[in-house]
């Protein structure tokens, strides 16, 4: 089995190497057949990676401990469902998953754009192939998932904090997002290398950017939900370097999604866009480097491993390569940029790009600064949550405001008069909300108050856009409001899908602010029968119970929760003891109070022999909006990504026209 896996993995490396070399030759010499063959090599590399990954999964299912990777990350007691997730519970398997997603996404992108790739952007195949070859080289030569040993009687088990349903989906989604960003990067670089800097690479890669960005965003939120429900400290995001590693490319991709629109509409910012996508891709690599190299102290300290140097070298190659390509093509990239007004949609995108990229780079700086301090002064320092929270306010609040103003601005120019009229309703609404919040006592936190006022403004802006648009469509001949609404959205899916995503970000902001600024919590030592209360809620400790299963013992304290004397049922909070792994994991109890829009979280910090417990209760207002934001975000992305017949027709027409033929559009 190990032999087959290893052999297939080697084959993958060979195929991707062929795709790179043959593809480059074909691109230089203009050989279509050879290029087609390189594309096929990439596609078959995907098929072979599926076989390799399948082999490893099979080894996990069969408890084949002769494979070191299986022995180190699984055990006979591990439930079957988690043996599937075991594929990505360690470094070697994660790299295999990375390769799997990379070849899969790349193959799909190549096949769906086959004609474009072969005729217009031939360098796409060798660039994807080269990146793939690197990621195939690592598991082949440096960190093989198929390394063998004499089989021990049982495996060491799986990291207990990964034994959680969220960890079944979080990593694959994260990788879809991370790795998917390779596609727009490859298209952009291919456009530069092939000297085809027109819109075609943008159009071809647009959906891939959106797709990866969506999955990255959803994966970050799922990771937050996992942290919230299974780590048990009452929070969901700790600005850990590894968490930031996913957020940085997401922010950069957000900036890219916006600025690429300016390119499509106005042929501006072409240089900036290729820089931005190169930055985004580098940040995904950098994030992986941080996660995997053990360079940075993190709670997610995965194994300290030997791949750090390899990754760093690859990042250097990517950075140098893309910098060289961009600089050498500057003359064909540059266009005359004309900005009609500083108050226009495109100008707003400039400002938002500034803030988003500044925030992403600040996070990079925050990750690198302790290393700098260590290197220059030999003093180790920490850059933690207070630092990032500060910059979240500095960059995040203006972004929130901008998110409200941007949609109200027209492309090209908005005279002050138009602007004033467009802004009036949302502004009124925001001020009203602000005043109400001050009366309700939200003034206890100034940033919270500001954030909520801005949120109100942004959400009102989105609503105004929808209302005005629908009304206009109705005037234009749609008979029903529903019809007008659908026709509005379907005529510009990206814009209105984008607005839905804006709404999601506003919900997220409300949830984050609510749960981090207006939260309350307390810890107390309780004997059975005793009670403690926080913010109107009261929990009475009833006692503990113990359930045993093959993989772990579950100790649960039982607490009767009530709000102002009214019982809300029993909440269980305790700990799991994973036997093989010798690990204790928190199992928190969460009661979601929809009426008051807050979560009551019970964490059994410590259970003593005498039956007493140190119970921590946290009340997190509005936190569930964060998860709802995830759903809304997904809806917005689906709307924006949905195939657009009108656009497709136009592109087909365009393609035909370039060949000098007339469109056959009846």
């Amino acid at each position, binding site marked *: 089995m190990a032999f087959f896996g290893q052999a297939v993995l080697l084959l993958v490396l060979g195929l991707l190497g062929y795709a790179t070399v043959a593809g480059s030759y074909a691109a230089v010499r203009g050989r279509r057949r050879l290029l087609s063959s390189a594309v096929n090599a990439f596609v078959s590399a995907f098929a072979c990676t599926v076989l390799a990954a399948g082999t490893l999964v099979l080894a996990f299912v069969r408890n084949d401990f002769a494979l070191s990777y299986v022995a180190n990350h699984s055990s006979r007691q591990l439930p079957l469902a988690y043996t599937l997730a075991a594929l990505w519970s360690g470094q070697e398997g994660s790299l295999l998953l990375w390769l799997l997603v990379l070849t899969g996404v790349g193959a799909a992108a190549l096949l769906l754009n086959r004609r474009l790739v072969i005729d217009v952007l031939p360098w796409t195949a060798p660039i994807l192939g080269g990146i793939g070859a690197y990621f195939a080289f690592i598991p082949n030569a440096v960190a093989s998932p198929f390394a063998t040993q004499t089989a021990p009687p049982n495996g060491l088990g799986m990291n207990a904090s990964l034994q959680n349903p969220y960890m079944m989906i979080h990593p694959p989604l994260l990788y879809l997002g991370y790795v998917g960003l390779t596609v727009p990067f490859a298209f952009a670089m291919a456009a530069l290398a092939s000297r085809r800097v027109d819109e075609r690479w943008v159009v071809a890669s647009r959906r891939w950017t959106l797709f990866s960005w969506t999955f990255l965003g959803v994966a970050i939120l799922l990771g937050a939900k996992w942290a919230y429900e299974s*780590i048990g*400290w009452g*929070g969901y995001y*700790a600005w*850990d370097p590894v968490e930031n590693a996913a957020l940085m490319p997401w922010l950069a991709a957000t900036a890219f999604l916006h600025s690429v629109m300016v390119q499509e509409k106005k042929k501006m910012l072409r240089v900036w866009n290729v820089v931005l996508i190169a930055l985004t891709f580098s940040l995904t690599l950098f994030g992986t480097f941080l996660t995997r190299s053990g360079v940075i*102290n*993190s*709670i997610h*300290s995965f194994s300290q491993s030997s791949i750090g140097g390899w990754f760093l070298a690859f990042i250097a190659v990517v950075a140098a390569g893309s910098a060289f390509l961009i600089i050498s093509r500057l003359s064909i990239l540059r266009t*005359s*940029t*004309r*900005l*009609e*007004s*500083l*108050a226009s949609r495109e*100008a*707003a995108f*400039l*400002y938002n790009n*500034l*803030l988003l990229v*500044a925030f992403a*780079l*600040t996070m990079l*700086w*925050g990750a690198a*600064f*302790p290393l700098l*301090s260590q290197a*220059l*002064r030999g*003093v*180790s*320092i*920490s*850059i*933690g*949550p*207070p*630092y990032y929270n*500060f*910059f979240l*306010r*500095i*960059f995040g*609040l*203006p972004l929130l*405001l*901008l998110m409200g*103003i941007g949609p109200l601005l027209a492309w090209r120019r908005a005279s002050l008069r138009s602007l004033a009229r467009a802004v009036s309703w949302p502004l009124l609404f925001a001020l009203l909300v602000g005043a109400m919040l001050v009366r309700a006592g939200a003034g206890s936190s*100034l*940033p919270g108050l500001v954030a909520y006022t801005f949120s109100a403004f942004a959400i009102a802006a989105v609503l105004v856009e929808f209302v005005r648009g629908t009304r206009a469509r109705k005037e234009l001949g749609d008979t029903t409001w529903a019809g007008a609404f659908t026709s509005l959205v379907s005529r510009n899916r990206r814009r209105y899908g984008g607005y839905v995503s804006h709404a999601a970000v506003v919900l997220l902001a409300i949830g984050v602010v609510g749960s981090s600024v207006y939260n309350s*919590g307390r810890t107390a030592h309780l004997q059975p029968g005793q009670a403690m209360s926080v913010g109107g809620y009261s929990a009475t400790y009833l006692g503990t119970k113990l359930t045993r299963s093959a993989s772990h013992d579950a100790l649960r304290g039982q607490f009767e929760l009530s709000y102002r004397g009214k019982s809300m049922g029993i909440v269980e909070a305790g700990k799991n003891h994973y036997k093989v792994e010798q690990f204790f994991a928190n199992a928190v109890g969460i009661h979601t109070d929809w009426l008051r829009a807050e979560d009551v979280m019970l964490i059994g*910090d*410590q259970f003593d022999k005498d039956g007493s417990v140190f119970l921590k209760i946290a009340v997190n207002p509005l936190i569930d909006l964060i998860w709802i934001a995830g759903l809304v975000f997904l809806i917005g992305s689906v709307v924006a990504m949905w195939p657009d017949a*009108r656009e497709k027709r*136009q592109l087909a027409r365009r393609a035909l026209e370039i060949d000098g033929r007339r469109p056959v*559009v009846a």
Partner: protein
Amino acid sequence: MSVRGLLLAAVLALLLAPPTAASERHPTLAELEHEVMCPTCHQLLELSDAPIADRIRAFIQARIEAGDTKSEIKQRLVSEFGEAVLAAPPTRGFELLAWLLPILGLAGSGLVIALLAWRWTRLKPEAAKPHLVNGFSELDPKLARRLDEELALLDR
């Protein structure tokens, strides 16, 4: 707009940066748990249940009861564990660079963008063709009709 945004950011920074005097003189454990790291686990003290984290919590509680200010407590912790015990670097000396660079970077690039944008707005439209100078009304009627047709096509 960007200037206004920057101003706003600056004002907010001024408002938010110095923690209020009350919390400096009478800090709470919860506050300090947010600003201090557990030295062995590279997490906020708040998130950590390592033995040393419990010790630090006890220490902070004792110092609060003894009437220490927040910065005094932090100073004591630094002298025991080194600077890495603070969750965010101090705003002085070399560490000031950690705070300043992003702000200066934002201000600098904001300035560059503002400058560029201002220049772009002053750029004259591409050299106008003489026969089209007066625009709309002078558009050749045949061409105008074609344009309308194209627009209609787009709207289907």
